[in-house]
Every structure is written in C-alpha cells, then in structure tokens.
C-alpha cells in the first residue's frame, strides 16, 4: 500500500517532448513508474523513450487509461495544462513547474476541488510511493520501501531527510511534496489524513517551513492521529518580511513564525527535530525501535 499513487497508477507526462519532460520521463521510467502516454500540443505522434505523445489529454485518454498526470509545462501554460488534465477526469495532477502566477494557482486549485481531483504543487518536487511509482523530479536512489510517510513543502530538504531515513534503515511508504508556493492544491492536513488511513504507514514525518499557517492547522489534526509524527521546520533563523525562496516562506505581519509552528506541533504531541539529521532517531524513539 501507499497513498495517492502506486505500482498500478497509469501516468501521463504533460510537456513530455520538452527538455525537462524528456529527461524526467526517462528518470521516472527508470524508477519503475508506469508511464503510458505524454502530451505535447502539435507534436502528437512523437515518441519519447518509447512512450507516445498526444496533442491533448483527451486524445491520450481516448487511447489509454490515465490515472495521474505530471506537468512539466512552462509557467505561462501551466494553468491550462492542469485544467486540461482535471477536465479530462484525471484524478491526480502533479504540477512540478515553478513560477506559476498565484491567480492561476487559485483557479486551478478551485477547479480541482470542484472536480474532486488531487493537485500536488505547483512548485513541487512531486511524489514517490517508494519502490512503486515516482512522479516528479527527485533523485531515484534514496527512496526505498518502508514504514514512514513523509510530507513536505520543499524538495532538496526532503531528499536530505529521506536520505537520512534510508541510511538509518527507515524506508518510506509515500513521500509527498506539496509545493513551495503560497497556494498549492494539497496541504499537510489532507496528506496526514491519508497517512493515518494507510495501513502500511507506521509513522509520519512532516517537513514544514516558516510562513502561512498550514503547520498550525495540521497540528489540530495531529492531536487526533493514532500514528506518531515527527516534525522539522525550516527557517528558524529567517528574518521577518524576507521571502526565503519559496513564495510561501515568509513571515508577514508576525504570522507564520518558526516558534508558533514548533509550539503548535509540540502541543499536538509531535516531536520536533532541531536539525534534519535528528529525524530518524526521533522516529525510532516514537516507534519504540
């Protein structure tokens, strides 16, 4: 088991013939992802790594069963691509593209909600159900099967922590990237609920950062969870009013501080790691390993 995607997920790559699309199609195939089709308007008929490209998602859907799509389309066309997948009935849409206008994000997230689709991102590294399916851009080698669910806002920090977990013998059920932007399709609480229900997930790592209040909201849910949660919050040393790379990572008007998030998580019964390398030890401690 895993959440959101698994070995049976049929994946569509949007923007497959582009530089990023081509590179990651190969990487994802290497990981074992079941990619069945791609899109590239005007280039229907092309073949990338043995996978057929279509002119539209509908055309791809007419020829294949599509469960999930991963979007590598440039920012100006990302909204259109995401809406196209959702409109065609694709249930999971992973939007890797960064730099998507926030009004576009609002629009696609609202439409996804209406249609009951799961959107990860924009500006996400993607999602890996370890050993089963990878959608997005993480390096293949660190993601191995195991009992830990991971949910995060940012990519490399996640690889760092997942690398630590794996090095300490703790594999992952699913590693979910929500995206670093201010408005993203799926937030901590949505993913935590899925991990809570997933029988193979025994513990959860929440990798947050300053800005917004997603960690605080998630803490309310963590109180009710049966599974242990270890948190790490990046941005302790960031000054207010400075945006730390991610559109969402900014302390504005005294809100979204490191301290507030750590307190909320701690009050909810989660353990909070001070440095990334402490995460595996805390997981083992909470699981009594």
């Amino acid at each position, binding site marked *: 088991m895993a959440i959101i995607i698994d070995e049976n997920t049929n994946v569509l790559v949007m923007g497959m013939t582009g530089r990023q699309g081509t590179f990651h199609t190969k990487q994802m195939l290497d990981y074992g992802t079941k990619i069945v089709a791609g899109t590239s308007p005007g280039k229907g008929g092309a073949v990338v790594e043995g996978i057929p490209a279509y002119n539209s998602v509908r055309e791809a859907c007419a020829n294949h069963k599509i469960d999930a799509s991963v979007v590598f389309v440039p*920012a100006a066309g990302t909204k259109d691509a995401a809406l196209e997948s959702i409109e065609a009935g694709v249930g999971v849409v992973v939007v890797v593209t960064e730099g998507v206008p926030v009004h576009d*994000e609002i629009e696609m997230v609202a439409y996804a909600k*209406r249609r009951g689709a799961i959107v990860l991102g924009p500006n996400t590294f993607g999602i890996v159900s370890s050993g089963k399916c990878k959608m997005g851009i993480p390096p293949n080698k660190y993601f191995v099967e195991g009992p830990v669910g991971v949910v995060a806002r940012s*990519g490399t920090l996640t690889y760092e922590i997942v690398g630590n977990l794996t090095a300490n013998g703790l594999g992952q059920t699913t590693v979910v990237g929500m995206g670093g932007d201010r408005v993203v399709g799926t937030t901590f609480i949505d993913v935590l609920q899925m991990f809570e229900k997933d029988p193979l997930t025994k513990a959860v790592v929440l990798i947050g*950062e300053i800005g917004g209040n997603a960690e605080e909201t998630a803490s309310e849910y963590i109180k009710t969870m049966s599974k242990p949660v270890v948190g790490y919050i*990046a941005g302790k040393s960031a000054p207010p009013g400075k945006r730390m*790379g991610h559109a969402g990572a900014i302390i504005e008007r005294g809100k979204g501080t490191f301290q507030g998030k750590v307190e909320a998580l701690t009050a909810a019964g989660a353990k909070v790691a001070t440095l*990334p390398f402490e995460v595996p030890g805390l997981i083992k401690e909470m699981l009594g390993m």
Partner: protein
Amino acid sequence: MFEYMGKELFAKFGLPVPSGRMITNPEEAAAVAAEIGKPVVIKSQVLSGKRGKAGGIKFADTPEQAVAAAKEIFGMIIQGLPVERLLIEEKLKIDKELYMSITVDGAAKMPVLIASAHGGMDIEEVDEEFIIKQHIDPELGMHPFIARDVVRRMGIPLSGPHGKEIVKIIQTLYRIFKQKDAELVEINPLVFSDDKVIAADSKVTIDDDALFRQKDLPYVEERSATEKAAKDLGLSFVDLDGNIAVMANGAGITMGTLDTLQYYGGAAANFLDCGGGTGREATAEALKLLIAKNPKSMIINIFGGITRCDQVALAFKDIKESVGFPCPVVIRLVGTNQDLGREILAEVGVEAFDFMQDAAKKAVELAAQG
C-alpha cells in the same frame, strides 16, 4: 509599487482618489499646489509603511509652504530608503477612516477581502471584532450582493451615499486584484469626505510570477543589486546580516543550512538557493555573488538531485583558479555524480563533507577564527 502608481492604477479603473501629482524635485511642488488650489498634503513615496511617524508626510496651505515642506522631505531616509519622489495631493476633509484590502489567503486557497470601519492604522492593531474577512469563491467571483453584505457588516447604511459607493469600490478593487495579478490591493485609509468616499492611500503588490503578462504596469525594483543579479541568473538570493556566505540547492535546504549555522552559533550573510539543475557557469556566477558579500567563511551545501555534483565542483574549481576565494570554503557534496565531483575537488585540494551538520559546524568555526 509606489503609492502614486497605485493611485494612478486605481484612477484608471474608476476608483475615487484625491487630485494630485507625483514630483521628483521640490521646486515642482509650487506649481502642483497652485494647480490644486487648496491646502495640500505632501507624501514621501517609499516602499514602507510608517511614513507619517517618520515625518515623511507634511501639510501645506500655500505653494510656498509646499515647496518648503517638499525640501524637508526630499533627502530623508525612511526605514533605510531614501526619498526620491513625493506625491502632492489635495488635503482631504476626513470625516471617517476605513480599511479595505484584498489579498491571497494561502490556507483557504482563495482571495480574501478584509474590511474594517476602523481604518488609518495597521490592520493588525485593529480589534478582531471590528475586522470583516470575506473569502471570495474564485469560481463565483465578486458580486454586488457580497459587497453589500460586507458594507452591512461594517455597520455602514446601505441606503446612504457612502454605502452605495463602497459597494462599487469593493467590486472595482476585486477587478484590479484579478486583472492586474495582484497579491495585495489595499486602501488604508479609505475616507469619508462629506458625501464622497475616497482612497486616501494605496498599496498594490503585483505577483512577480505574473509580470510576463502585466507588462504595462510600472515596475519598482525592490531588490538589492545582489538580489537582482541573482534573480537574473535564475537564482533566489536574500541579503542577511551575518558573516558566513551560504549557497545550497533548494529553498528548504538553504533555510535548513542557515538554521544549522545558527544552531552552531554562526550567522549567515545571505540566503542563496541555486535551485535545481543550475549548470557550471551560473553556479560560478553565484559563487561570485557570495565573494562579493566579503564573508568570514563560506559554505556550499549540495544534495544533488537534478543538480549534478560535478558541475558544482567545476564551478568551484573555475572560481578558485580565476578570482580565488578570499575566505575559507566548506563544501558538502552528495548526490548525483558525487564521485566525479569529489575527484574534481581533489584536484584543487579540497575535501568535501558527507553531512550537512558537520560542514555547518566547520563553517562556523572558520568564521569565528577569521
């Protein structure tokens, strides 16, 4: 965007603003004040609140007084920002001050209209009970009934001229917010002046990511020169106050690196996320930005995914062999092409760390020694 630009935008959409004009030189104040023909207010144009408290807003009854006041304000430094432009406007008769803004609520994933009948101060200082927050369903959009209900909740009679005008202002403000890709449109204060309702101030922030389709908007560079240079390279750079220069790949891990430095008692001179897949040349340019910070030590923290360790190592070698580094450099290098990268580093006599915490600790020690 400066206040006067926001007001020009407001006026273009039909929002009521005071009559006035921007000037870049104090002598112009006389002509503008004479043109207005009434007592005026002279407002420094800087990208910061708290201008009033800093003395950046003055009043004048005559053109002569206006020039004198303008001279005083020009050359002021307000919260570190030099005053280079003034806005001269008619001085409004203010019967009441309100607050009105629309921004993006990330948690709710939709726009939110924030309004209060108690304006004129920072909205954070207004009591919760006097603040109205109305989320806007993005698929439904803004409609008169929503605006009317907000006015009602503000305690302003819908039947009077003020109520009717605010209903229109709310709809226009949402139109600006949407059409101009704004992250924030704010009017504080929105004032009652006899029967009229006027936007006495404006704050408009446009989404950087949407500038490609908002080319007609005036753009104000809010970044430092270094930040701008990094942006042009496709990197994300923020100036900080410490003495350890930092480069890492990814916003989260860069923050994590800063935090780890702090944990060991150090302080970062900057935030530099060199992103994913940045190549040899851009990475070398990024290293130059770090050198320009004149740090006591430097840490490069790479967990290679798309980013290839060999490219980073080559960039490091390039700089070491050309400009050279003015301070000790600590490198943590793991991930894609790790072995290749380390071989290249070995050529220039550098050994990479395996773990971020060890590298950070070392960088702090070196900075303390420097």
